[in-house]
């Protein structure tokens, strides 16, 4: 028999003997723990330690960190940026700002361009980065966004895009929380916070047994002072190694719900630039002609280019297509590294064509007087 003798009738009269937590007696312990964490923060700031650890967040991938550092250097050296190229890795690899500057200089214009192309940035993420990173940091006169047909559709890279949009900093960009700026500021300054969630991501790369390949190829390739990344080897060598045989010409519809969403995101970027009094130009970055070699490819390509042109007209921004509606103008394997990233030779040719088009279309903007 286990009687509990529960009766609270006389308990209420008894004084509560609750004792307050004595901070004075225990303050040393939390202070010591905080000091140790501060030590860890300092250790994380050592580049060699950072190098050995997994990438902190998408925002801290080498591709972004190096570009932001390079941008700050260009701003320090030149005072301002005239033309900022934005988009995915096709912009990063296919447009050479230094070549571009030299080409337009031949036309009597002096300007500074910078390549802000980032791996995996589809139109939706481009709009986010233009709004929160590029426009506030670079204050360019012109934003040139590069696009290809593949980026109007979801792809295996879509998972990466969702990871970008839900990243610790990018997620906060998309909210209107009153503490947003404080949180972003803390995340940008405190390395310990930046490493939140890296352990599960690292473990997840082993889920099939082998570590997943890093999507941040900026770890492996060289990037120049204006943000251009060279891509090698050339497509003919790649094909001779038996790679890329699974690739196929485009067969996706030119216009559907997915493309509408991507076009809407492009429209958002244009509107952001308009509000910031920055000229906006959309550029069709030519893919290898193989992509349009399927049945009815030429007509489909024309429809695709017309779709972009119609968008530009409806939203009153400039549109540049260096192929003049003919995808076969870009069919040289030596000018590509795969079917959409160009080799340095291809990037040089495309950049020259782009400089020629932009130099003639935007003479009022590309002047040294702006500085």
């Amino acid at each position: 028999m286990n009687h509990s003798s529960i009766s609270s009738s006389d308990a209420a009269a008894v004084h509560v003997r609750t004792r307050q937590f004595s901070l004075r007696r225990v303050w040393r312990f939390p202070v010591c723990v905080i000091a140790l964490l501060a030590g860890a923060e300092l250790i994380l700031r050592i580049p060699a330690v950072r190098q050995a650890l997994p990438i902190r967040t998408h925002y801290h991938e080498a591709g972004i960190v190096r570009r932001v550092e390079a941008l700050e250097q260009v701003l320090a050296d030149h005072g301002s940026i005239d033309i900022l190229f934005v988009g995915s890795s096709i912009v990063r690899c296919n447009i050479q700002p230094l070549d571009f500057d030299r080409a337009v200089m031949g036309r009597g214009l002096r300007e500074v361009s910078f390549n802000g192309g980032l791996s995996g940035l589809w139109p939706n993420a481009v709009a986010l980065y233009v709004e929160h990173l590029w426009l506030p940091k670079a204050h360019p006169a012109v934003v040139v966004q590069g696009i290809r047909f593949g980026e109007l559709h979801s792809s295996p890279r879509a998972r990466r895009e969702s990871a970008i949009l839900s990243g610790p900093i990018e997620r906060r960009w998309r909210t209107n929380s009153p503490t947003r700026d404080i949180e972003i500021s803390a995340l940008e300054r405190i390395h310990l916070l930046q490493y939140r969630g890296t352990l599960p991501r690292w473990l997840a790369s082993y889920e099939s047994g082998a570590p997943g390949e890093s999507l941040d190829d900026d770890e492996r390739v060289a990037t120049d002072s204006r943000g251009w990344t060279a891509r090698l080897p050339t497509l003919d060598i790649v094909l001779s190694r038996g790679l890329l045989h699974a690739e196929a010409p485009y067969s996706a519809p030119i216009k559907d719900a997915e493309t509408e969403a991507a076009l809407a995101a492009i429209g958002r970027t244009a509107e952001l630039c308009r509000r910031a009094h920055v000229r906006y130009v959309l550029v069709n970055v030519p893919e290898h002609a193989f992509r349009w070699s399927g049945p009815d490819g030429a007509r489909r390509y024309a429809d695709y280019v017309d779709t972009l042109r119609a968008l530009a007209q409806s939203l009153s921004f400039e549109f540049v297509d260096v192929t003049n509606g003919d995808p076969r103008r870009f069919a040289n394997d030596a000018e590509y590294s795969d079917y959409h990233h160009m080799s340095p030779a291809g990037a040089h040719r495309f950049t020259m064509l782009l400089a020629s088009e932009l130099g003639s279309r935007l003479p009022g903007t590309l002047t040294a007087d702006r500085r």
Partner: protein
Amino acid sequence: MLFHTPQYFVFLGIVLVLYFHLNHRGQNLMLLGASIFFYSCWDYRFVSLLMASCVLDFWAGRYIYRARLAGDRAAMKRGLLASLTGNLGMLAFFKYFGFFVGSADTALRTLGFTPSLPVLNIVLPVGISFYTFQTLSYAIDIYRGQLDPVDRFLDFALFVAFFPHMVAGPIMRAVDLLPQMTRPRVVTQANIERGLLLFGMGLFRKVAIADPAGMLADTYFANPASFSTIPLVCGLVLYGLQIYNDFAGYSDMARGAAWLLGFDLMRNFRHPYFAKNIADFWKRWHISLSTWLRDYLYIPLGGNRKSATRTTINLFLTMLLGGLWHGASWNFVIWGGLHGTYLTVYHTWRRWRESREIHWMPAPVVSRVLSTIAVYALVTFTWLFFGAHDTGTTIAYLSGLAALSPGGEGAFLPVCVLWGLTLAIDLPQAVADDELFALRWAFVPRAVAVAAACLVILFSGQMRHEPFIYFQF
């Protein structure tokens, strides 16, 4: 409001500040208000159900007690029946109605009938399985004469709705918790140190181990056909780590929060994966449920006081119902049934050994290690039926395991890391036979351990807050 979210930390902070400024009656009133607020954060509609359960058992307890004093056995039975019918009726309706109707519908269709059984999409009130068992034990204990009813409804309502343990236990006995409600509590610095340590260990288990393990295990359970055998084995181990650390983490956080308020809730886990046999496992796993089932189901059924066959049936039935308690699904029934079978086989073997007076065993250490590994392997395999939410996934997973396809050895790495983190808590606890082992450590090692734990929690922290698995039961 999950225990590992900033909202809960703010909530607990406010509760603590108010608590230390109130007298005993004010504390109970405030805690009840806070508990109702906490529960209504899940779904305010079910607060009335919770209160109805409180009213029913408060009344039933007093009714049974009066009948007991008057020696009226029939009235005592009526009171107990009212409590059993009300509580189990609610549980049956909200938790099992859809399951039984769906199963009956399927069975009748298999036999060629076309029944039109009522299909209701009933939302399961969070914590119903836990508070129902708790209130039932109150009425049963009074019926058995082991407890006198509480005088004030406020104290009883707080016993049922006390926020640290209301949603997922530990399932406390009235005889243990009610005196803590009715008497003034003393919060000492030792209480606060214990509370903070337990809360911190729970947070570590949840954020650093259970959530990452769950994220990985989900991948394997979502599409078992696309993985080879080794990753699938790792998936089961990871699920085992997830469910253990998730639930033990919740229990530790609940007990830690309770300690901060001066309450002592019962321990729910005692490093179960170190069990030396399957019976030992059930003495270490979800202790508050297994002892509840033992005291209020197994023993009333006859326990081991009757024949060997009857004992086996009692055991099997208890485990089957224990499985069904977790959820209305055949997978839980199979899980409970398998554990019932293991226990039956173990007890039969033990009786056989004792009757033949076989005392031979390998060296104690070897025997202990081998038996622990065997029990762990068995328990981990059985988690498959718990983790897979449908028969199709279960079959696909079993096929993948049986295929013995090569490759995927690297999948062991996350298992090793997360097992290592689990051992970082369990091993010192087991060796020291003290769950609060770290309180014995000197100042500097303790500070280093806490800082290291903070770092691991920080590195493991997800962007989303995963709910505790047992909240769905």
